[in-house]
């Protein structure tokens, strides 16, 4: 029988393992249940919180076009798509044409948030309802989010800031990182949690050049709808 004494010789190794595992678990994206780790401190300074909260309005230019190269992973198979995107943030309007990489339109969407939406799909598997729940939600979350009405702000000791807002059963979290030597906050991750379990994440990676203002690589994972999108982005501004 395994009892407490059995573990004693391995005590140091177990502690070492736990020390290594905790940061890995904390930084490992959407696969685990998430709660605010204890090293995060709540920031109550209203001006600072407001500054971080307003950051969402300046993440992208007001109007831009972009080309997306996408790998969609669904049911363990991968599909490559090219996306041609137009975003008008003040008008809250998005147009997207998605093509097979060898040509041929798979679907196109045009919507003005909360006003109108048009969706055409040439593939029966990607019906309007499914596209609305996935593509439209992804585009809105990426490009049309607004400041939270009454958020909570947490920070760790590594200049990471978590802005959190409960919306019905979902808690939305935006994770910002302060850029070294600048008063600028870069959005690195968006998380949606349901019953403290992460159900949806968007991870954003920026280029290394001097003009790395906008994300060049985006990773979207939806746990409930079981899809993953890897997106390479080139902006036409």
């Amino acid at each position, binding site marked *: 029988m395994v009892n407490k004494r059995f573990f004693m010789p391995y005590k140091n190794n177990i502690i070492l393992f736990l020390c290594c595992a905790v940061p890995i678990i904390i930084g490992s994206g959407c696969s685990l249940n998430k709660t605010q780790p204890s090293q995060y401190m709540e920031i109550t300074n209203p001006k600072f919180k407001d500054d971080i909260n307003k950051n969402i309005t300046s993440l992208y230019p007001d109007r831009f076009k972009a080309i997306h190269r996408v790998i969609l992973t669904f049911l363990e*198979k991968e599909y490559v798509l090219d996306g041609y995107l137009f975003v008008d943030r003040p008008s809250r309007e998005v147009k997207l044409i998605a093509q*097979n*990489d060898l040509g*041929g339109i798979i679907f196109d969407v045009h919507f003005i948030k909360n006003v109108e939406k048009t969706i055409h799909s040439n593939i029966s598997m990607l019906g309007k309802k499914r596209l609305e729940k996935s593509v439209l939600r992804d585009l809105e979350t990426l490009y049309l989010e607004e400041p939270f009405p009454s958020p909570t702000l947490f920070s760790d000791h590594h200049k990471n800031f978590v802005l959190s807002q409960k919306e019905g059963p979902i808690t939305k979290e935006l994770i910002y990182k302060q850029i070294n030597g600048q008063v600028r906050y870069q959005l690195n991750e968006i998380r949606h949690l349901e019953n403290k379990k992460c159900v949806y994440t968007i991870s954003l990676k920026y280029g290394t050049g001097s003009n790395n203002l906008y994300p060049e690589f985006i990773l979207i994972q939806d746990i409930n709808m079981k899809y993953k999108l890897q997106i*390479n982005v*080139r902006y036409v501004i």
Partner: protein
Amino acid sequence: MISKTTTLSLVIIAAVFIIVTPLFATEPKPIPDDQLNLLLDNVEKNFSKIKTLKTLLTQEKNIALFSEPIISTGFCIFKSPNKLRLDFIEPFKSSLIINNSQIFKYEFFHGNWQKLDIGNKEMMLLIMENITSWLKGKFKDPDLYEICAFKNKNTTILLTPKADEFKKFISSFELGLNREMNGLEYIIINETKNHYTKIQFRNDEINNEIPDIIFEGSNDKPHPVSQW
């Protein structure tokens, strides 16, 4: 006496006719069926001399959403009878390889090559087999396409898909032959809603040695190809 206004109107009408008539006159007419078969046999004979082909390519996508065409560049390598590799370098890196009836797809994302387990293998294989056939000068596929050809400065072959399911994506392919009629100069993929993609080939290298290894898909990244 004809009034000044009437004279002016006649001059304008005549001018319009003079300007417009040549536009209609240059509209190419389809080559009649008996000549078409002769032309296609001739082209296939010419193309059959191509055992290997390396060519640079420029893809120009015309999407209504963008005022300027979207340009991608890359290369195409063909080794008769059934090896084809289509690589894009800019703005995104990718490699699509057909080796007999096997298909391999690689994408360069976030600094790394990824070998994909593609879900639409059959469709990709069909399109790549089509391109391979065209590079061999075999344009007739009565199960899939209506075929006709036009002779203007050069010869253009027009393939129109027969199946409605196919037509939802592609309304036609235009294949532009070179002046010597022994190679392809461009492919235009006419899609729906006035979108089209033009792939232009240049700097062809014909019948040079091409090692089989560049068509292999067993590695986690495509085998490197020396530039030309």
